[in-house]
């Protein structure tokens, strides 16, 4: 350890994000009084270039040997500030962060109390910083291959981009064909191109690409390892596949309207889902409108009901499915063309047309005499060969009993029924709606809590095809970062044994999940292999002789944090 800590403390305003609730000046003044602190400052944006330069200049001018940045979560900017320190010649592990934004300014409103708390958080991290030790940065090699789970448009696009960059890709698809849900569609909004025209060339490129191995009718059953070196077991493939990065593109399930029994789906032949309608429209374009007949008659009145299974708190689906408004506009428009005599009505609560070209497409649908009535259908029952849609026209303020021959339920998206299994296989968190969770909704939309695993398409949340493809391309380029660099940083904060104190009981060998601890046959003391150790600290907490320390989280450091918190 350096003889005397000379700590620089930097309190970030984060614009007003922190400064509005926390008196940053007061925190800086307080920090200046803490033991070991040489300089303490506040600044508008610490992560900005001038902010980082401020730290670097101080390191040189004041000969600082520790840096504490009090700002956002270390999960956000720890790499930034460690990098800044390193450029100024400071070991990156001598830079530590206090989280006064996510865990203070944003969750409290009382300025006095929040400022107080921020002070103690800073004091705690300063106490730890004073005891930090430099660690050696280590890198491990990367297996220059990737694996994509799910062969829909998302998975195919991601696989293709990685393959084009020159790396081998495995594409694992559960069903017997590529294309996912899109393969079940007829024409695509807003261009109205046929699905075959979109999917055909894409599938063809994937199948013939020399870098892509398509594995159909199978699934991933086990994933081990870490970013750079995953070992993926795929059913039916003998050896585990070694890959450096994974892309998850497992898509979505459509909502099953039997969960809304009041809509009569499954009871009346007149009521079908939008997905079934895609099939019928495809068949009608192929062999004539007769395919659209219900109970042997061509429908004269066709109704569409939007938001079935979406935006519904009672179902646990509070989200908007983002495609139903547009595919309803698409389908209703196609019905008007195929059955010019039919009256087409769409029942909706809001129409959302945010995609490029979408509002224009919606305008076209209405001009083709699709009638939009604002008001949701509450229930459906039978009258003779037809069904009655009971609802309210909220613009007229009058209930209606609307007779229809054919009713299309615009069913929304939901997480795959088996998302939980994949989630526990990969330790991949899901958001409360059940879709896979990105690490940050704005800044890191395709990264996950698991390094080296990226999300593409509807497995992360409802999307249309353009958004799916955009995200797939983003996931591919993120996955390419470790593959192109060839190495990834390895855990430096590993556990170390003090052989003098080790009694050779072997409890660490038992608790280590990675087989990193081993008893030396000759000396009967524990040895920890730093390449295998992931730094979980289970051994250190278990060792009855206190012979093991988890570097960067030593009892000395942690207890100093506790003491400082008490003030």
């Amino acid at each position, binding site marked *: 350890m350096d003889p005397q800590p000379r700590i620089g403390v930097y309190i970030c305003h984060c614009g007003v994000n922190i400064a509005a609730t926390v008196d940053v000046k007061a925190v800086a003044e307080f920090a200046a009084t803490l033991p070991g602190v040489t300089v303490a400052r506040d600044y508008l944006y610490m992560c900005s270039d001038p902010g980082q330069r401020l730290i670097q200049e101080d390191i040189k001018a004041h000969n600082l040997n520790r840096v504490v940045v009090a700002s956002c979560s270390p999960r956000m900017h720890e790499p930034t500030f460690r990098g800044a320190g390193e450029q100024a010649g400071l070991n990156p592990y001598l830079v530590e962060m206090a989280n006064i934004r996510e865990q203070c300014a944003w969750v409290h409103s009382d300025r006095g109390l929040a400022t107080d708390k921020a002070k103690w958080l800073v004091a705690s991290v300063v106490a730890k910083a004073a005891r930090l030790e430099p660690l050696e940065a280590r890198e491990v090699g990367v297996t220059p291959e990737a694996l994509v789970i799910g062969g829909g448009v998302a998975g195919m696009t991601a696989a293709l981009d990685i393959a084009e960059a020159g790396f081998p890709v495995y594409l694992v698809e559960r069903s017997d064909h590529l294309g996912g849900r899109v393969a079940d569609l007829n024409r695509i909004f807003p261009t109205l191109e046929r699905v075959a025209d979109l999917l055909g060339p894409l599938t063809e490129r994937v199948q013939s690409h020399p870098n892509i191995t398509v594995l159909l009718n199978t699934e991933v059953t086990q994933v081990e390892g870490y970013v750079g070196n995953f070992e993926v077991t795929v059913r039916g493939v003998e050896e585990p596949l070694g890959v450096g990065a994974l892309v998850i593109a497992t898509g979505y399930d459509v909502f099953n309207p039997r969960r809304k029994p009041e809509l009569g789906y499954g009871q009346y032949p007149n009521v079908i889902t939008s997905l079934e309608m895609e099939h019928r429209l495809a068949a009608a374009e192929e062999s004539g409108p007769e395919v659209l007949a219900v109970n042997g008659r061509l429908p004269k009145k066709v109704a569409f009901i939007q938001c079935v299974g979406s935006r519904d708190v009672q179902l646990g689906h509070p989200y908007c499915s983002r495609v139903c408004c547009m595919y309803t506009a698409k389908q209703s428009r196609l019905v008007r063309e195929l059955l010019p005599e039919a009256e087409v009505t769409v029942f909706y609560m809001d129409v959302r047309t945010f995609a490029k070209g979408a509002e224009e497409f919606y305008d076209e649908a209405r001009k083709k005499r699709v009638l939009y009535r604002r008001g949701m259908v509450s229930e459906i029952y039978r009258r003779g060969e037809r069904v009655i849609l009971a609802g309210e026209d909220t613009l007229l303020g009058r209930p209606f009993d609307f007779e229809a021959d054919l009713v299309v339920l615009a069913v929304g998206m939901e997480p795959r029924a088996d998302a939980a299994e994949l989630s526990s296989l990969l*330790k991949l968190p899901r958001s409360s709606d059940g879709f896979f969770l990105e690490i940050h909704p704005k800044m890191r939309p395709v990264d996950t809590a698991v390094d080296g695993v990226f999300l593409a398409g509807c497995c992360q949340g409802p999307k249309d095809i353009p958004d799916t493809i955009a995200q797939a391309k983003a996931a591919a380029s993120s996955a390419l970062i470790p593959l192109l660099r060839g190495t990834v940083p390895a855990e430096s904060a590993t556990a170390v044994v003090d052989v003098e104190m080790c009694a050779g009981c072997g409890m660490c060998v038992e608790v280590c999940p990675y087989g990193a601890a081993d008893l030396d046959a000759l000396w009967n003391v524990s040895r920890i292999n730093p390449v295998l150790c992931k730094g979980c600290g289970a051994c250190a907490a278990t060792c009855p002789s206190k012979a093991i320390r988890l570097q960067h989280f030593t009892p000395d450091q942690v207890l100093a944090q506790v003491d400082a918190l008490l003030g």
Partner: protein
Amino acid sequence: MAEKFEPKIVAFLCNWCTYTGADLAGTSRIQYPPNVRIIRLMCSGSVDPTYVLKPLLDGVDGVLVGGCHPGDCHYQSGNYKARRRIIALKEIIKNAGFDEERVWLRWISASEGQRFAETVTKMTEFLREKGPNPMRQKWAV
């Protein structure tokens, strides 16, 4: 007039689940009492018994240990180890004549910002009811 008692809580949160959940409470702007002070650890399985005992002896009113849900630990089984250790520890605390209810172990995932905020709120209320850690006075005199 006596000042209203405000408990001090030290929380040891695993980096992968609960610490991230606490961050999510922040990004979602979910408010909770400022009584909690968080210390980041890599895994709940690295919580050494002294991390819980020392604060209690020093007069902290409550210790919260947060980890991933069973089966979700980033290091496979750290949370199971934590559970076993905390159960044993509570027994020791009780036998030594201290109040084991001041130690809470909770599984809170990265997506459960709401749950993190609720846990802190509940724990703060619970400790307000319970009153200060008797060790506090001991040191005060």
